[in-house]
């Protein structure tokens, strides 16, 4: 642990300084959405059935109940994509006649307390004519399947195809084809703070302030004003302290639109705090996919061609802003992963069903495609009779920049080096020995590797390539030194636990020669921060960090120019350190505070230099690829199917690390979610579309008991595509872990010839695999 040090010429970037966010949070002085008092509390009446037509809704006497009929003129949420045969579908913010999944909001009840609103909601008599739902994506593809939206016959809302030139010839020349049918079950990001919003109408200005648990405050403002039809200047959106999001709080919640409408209608304050049941059934879901993969290998186990078929269950509606294309299209673009495979064919479909809408969740498709591809590499190893490490070594991309079969450009990275580092640190030969000894005693240990690369810091062109109407790629940062001498950085990005106030302050501190404590990073308030996109897709440090660095450099240049005037020295001789500008090699210095004051109050001294100290910068990078190798060692209880993760190791490379403590924390959290995805977490519906996992006793995020100590090793390959040299690392932990775990389980099961290609690999499924496919157990 590195303690704070003041000045001293040491760089702040690269040091594990304590977070500036923490003192308030550990005292319980954070400010979360739920902490706001409100005049009205809102309860949403939600569809109890997966499919049907609303026949009637009987309101109890005296209750304030609002339905779609009251919201006439409010437009439906209509996300848009201009490619891959996407068929736009609208989502009314309250169901308008038709319900399409259990949990869809039908009516909003407002009362003096949450309890009373729930009492009234309970008394509402709802009559719905049920129709036959479709729950599973493959069922939805069958001829004659119920149609979720009239404008999407066959339920395929998006149909992407890719085939590289010369694919067939390459495929036909294969020495061996290895096949895999992978299934990823549906998951929920499950932030410990569920979603919530608080909308307050201001009678003085006629504006509404919406405080909500969003990862994208500005776009939330744009979207709501579009739907309700009033100027953006009349809506202020604030993301206060946000209790985790992991993607779930990125997409627009229909409930927020209703809250703003209600605040304007009631000319008052209204709040809705999502309860855990609502979160589990009606906040966004993710990762419900079937992936069929076939790999064509040459006789040296080199992958020469890869064929993929992706069926993503996108639920009942399309999420805003990414659209439901986000999972299938990311899968299509990124399935080839870190491997040098020149021929690739993919068919990726987004399929509508009567289930909760899909939206991005940490890693989006990559935990699933990495799981599928890494299973394929392990199966190939077995087919060729070589070690799984060897199949990877022979196929990993080694020369950069590298253009993939679909045209993505991988920047400088360390795919082989991280694998080698992981293999060395885990001590593979020692493990194999221990594994043999354990087997002799009836214990089944397994080791699993997962190598992957992930696009982070997507710039606008990456989103544009998908045909997205909204391409949230760039960020703006305004850095100002105010007359007090303190620095404020206003950022469009909107962190929720990632420690960006600290890491961005570290970047500025180095440029300006001041300690991070003097720098306040302001975010999450559309009245205070410049328009920006938010925190998602492992982008904030790369993009907001890049814009911050550019703005800070402009400030630095200005301070040096001013100091040159004030100290009567050449600009090249000025250095900024310890809160001062000084003439190198002399004791002539002026404090930043003094310069700041002068910049506003003594402008006549500076000639052509503009008044004040405030600089704006934008950054829109091409994107950069992080990479890692994860290794899991598991112990499978053959009698019960229970998996214990004994050891988990990560060798990762996210370019330059700004704060190692925060970086480690991001990887830890991602890996824990990945272990949850691999072993525990699954949203289950019955055949009628009723959710069976509506409590945290049924949906199972891991506890401290299920997560082993996670061992981290870092390589730092500076990215040429990122001005800070940093790559993103918010999602990597979650991306690599499921594949490593599932490969380890399969390694443990290898003596039974049983295989499992499904996540989560529950004890039930492992026992079933042993029973149906295995030799004996």
């Amino acid at each position, binding site marked *: 642990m590195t303690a704070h040090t003041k000045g001293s010429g040491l760089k702040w970037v690269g040091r594990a300084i304590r977070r500036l966010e923490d003192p308030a949070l550990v005292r319980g002085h954070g400010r979360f959405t739920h902490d706001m008092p409100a005049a009205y509390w809102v309860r949403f009446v939600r569809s109890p059935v997966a499919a049907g037509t609303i026949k009637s809704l009987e309101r109890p006497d005296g209750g304030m109940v609002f339905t779609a009929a009251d919201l006439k003129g409010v437009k439906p949420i209509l996300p848009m994509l201009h490619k891959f045969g996407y068929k736009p579908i609208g989502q009314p913010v309250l169901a308008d006649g038709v319900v399409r999944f259990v949990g869809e909001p039908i009516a909003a009840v407002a009362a003096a307390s949450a309890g009373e609103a729930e009492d009234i909601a309970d008394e509402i008599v709802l009559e719905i004519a049920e129709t036959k739902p479709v729950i599973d994506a493959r069922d939805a593809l069958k001829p004659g399947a119920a149609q979720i939206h009239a404008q999407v016959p066959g339920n395929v809302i998006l149909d992407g195809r890719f085939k590289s030139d010369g694919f067939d010839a390459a495929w036909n020349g294969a020495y061996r084809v290895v096949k895999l049918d992978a299934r990823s079950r549906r998951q929920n990001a499950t932030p410990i703070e569920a979603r919530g919003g608080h909308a307050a109408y201001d009678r003085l200005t006629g504006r509404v302030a919406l405080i909500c648990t969003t990862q994208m405050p500005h776009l939330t403002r744009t979207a709501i004003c579009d739907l309700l039809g009033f100027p953006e200047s009349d809506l202020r959106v604030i993301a206060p302290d946000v209790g985790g999001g992991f993607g779930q709080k990125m997409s627009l919640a229909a409930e927020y639109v209703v809250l703003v409408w209600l605040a304007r209608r009631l000319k008052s304050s209204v709040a809705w705090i999502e309860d*855990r049941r609502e979160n589990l059934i009606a906040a966004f879901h993710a990762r419900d996919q079937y992936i069929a993969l076939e790999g064509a290998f040459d006789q040296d186990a080199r992958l020469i061609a890869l064929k993929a078929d992706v069926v993503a269950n996108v639920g009942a509606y399309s999420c805003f802003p990414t659209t439901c294309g986000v999972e299938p299209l990311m899968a299509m673009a990124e399935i080839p992963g870190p491997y040098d495979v020149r021929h690739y064919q993919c068919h990726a479909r987004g399929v509508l069903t009567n289930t909760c809408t899909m939206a991005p969740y940490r890693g989006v498709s990559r935990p699933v495609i990495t799981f599928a591809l890494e299973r394929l590499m392990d199966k190939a190893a077995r087919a060729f009779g070589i070690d799984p490490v060897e199949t990877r070594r022979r196929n990993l991309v080694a020369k950069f920049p590298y253009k993939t079969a679909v045209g993505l450009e991988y920047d400088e990275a360390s795919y082989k080096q991280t694998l080698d580092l992981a293999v060395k640190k885990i001590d593979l030969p020692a493990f194999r020995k221990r594994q043999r000894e354990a087997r002799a005693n009836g214990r089944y240990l397994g080791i699993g590797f997962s190598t992957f690369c992930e696009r982070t810091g997507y710039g606008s062109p990456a989103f544009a390539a998908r045909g997205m109407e909204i391409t949230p790629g760039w960020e703006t940062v305004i850095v100002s030194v105010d007359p007090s001498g303190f620095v404020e950085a206003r950022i469009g990005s909107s962190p929720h636990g990632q420690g960006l106030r600290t890491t961005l302050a570290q970047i500025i501190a180095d440029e300006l020669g001041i300690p991070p404590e003097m720098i306040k990073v302001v975010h999450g308030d559309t009245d205070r921060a410049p328009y920006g996109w938010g925190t998602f897709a492992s982008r904030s440090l790369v993009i907001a960090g890049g814009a911050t660095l550019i703005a800070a450099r402009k400030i630095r240049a200005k301070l040096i120019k001013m100091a040159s005037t004030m100290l009567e020295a050449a600009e090249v001789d000025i250095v900024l350190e310890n809160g001062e500008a000084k003439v190198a090699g002399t004791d002539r210095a002026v404090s930043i505070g003094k310069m700041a004051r002068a910049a506003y109050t003594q402008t006549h001294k500076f000639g052509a230099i503009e008044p004040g100290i405030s600089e704006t910068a934008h950054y829109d990078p091409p994107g950069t690829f992080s990479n890692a190798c994860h290794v899991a060692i598991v112990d499978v209880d053959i009698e019960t199917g229970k998996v214990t993760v004994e050891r988990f190791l990560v060798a990762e490379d996210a370019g330059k690390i700004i704060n190692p403590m925060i970086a480690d*924390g991001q990887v830890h959290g991602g890996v824990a979610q990945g272990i949850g995805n691999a072993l525990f977490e699954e949203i289950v519906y019955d055949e009628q579309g009723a959710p069976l996992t509506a409590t945290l006793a049924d949906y199972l995020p891991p*506890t401290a008991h299920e*997560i082993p100590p996670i061992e981290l090793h870092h390589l730092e390959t500076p990215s040429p595509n990122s001005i800070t040299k940093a790559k993103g690392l918010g999602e990597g932990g979650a991306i690599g872990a499921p594949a490593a775990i599932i490969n380890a389980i399969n390694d443990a099961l290898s003596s039974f010839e049983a295989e499992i290609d499904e996540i989560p690999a529950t004890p039930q499924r492992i026992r079933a695999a042993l029973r149906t496919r295995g030799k004996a157990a």
Partner: protein
Amino acid sequence: MSAKIDITLTINGRAHPISVEPRRTLADAIREDCGQTGTHIGCEHGVCGACTVLVDNEPVRSCLMFAVQAAGKEIRTVEGLADGDKLHPVQQAFMDHHGLQCGFCTPGFLMLAVGVLEREPDISDADLLDVLASNLCRCTGYQNIIKAVRAAAAQMRGR
């Protein structure tokens, strides 16, 4: 609605005379009636532990107690941990070891840890892990929470 009952909740030594329905959970009363919003609500069915507070020095889920049941008892919440500017060793350890990210589960973990370490200062590492498995965190993967609480335990034993 049912009739409200006048009670006094004593939170961090301060008396809060309030009027609540019997159905009001202790968590809601602490937050909404007494304005102490440091205690968070994550699931309202006793699984996540974000609402953990100390009642007569026992760590309990405040979503599973009714406020009326806590009248006359000593309630301690995260706001009462620090002594002025000086943080409680567990708070300090969470900062030093990066035991928090979004900070939403943190008050529950802090109260759980303080509660158990006060009751069982010599608790073994294995037993401490069992106790920490009571609460859910979605950000940290628990790695640094465990480190922080172990470090705080050592420090509290040393005092």
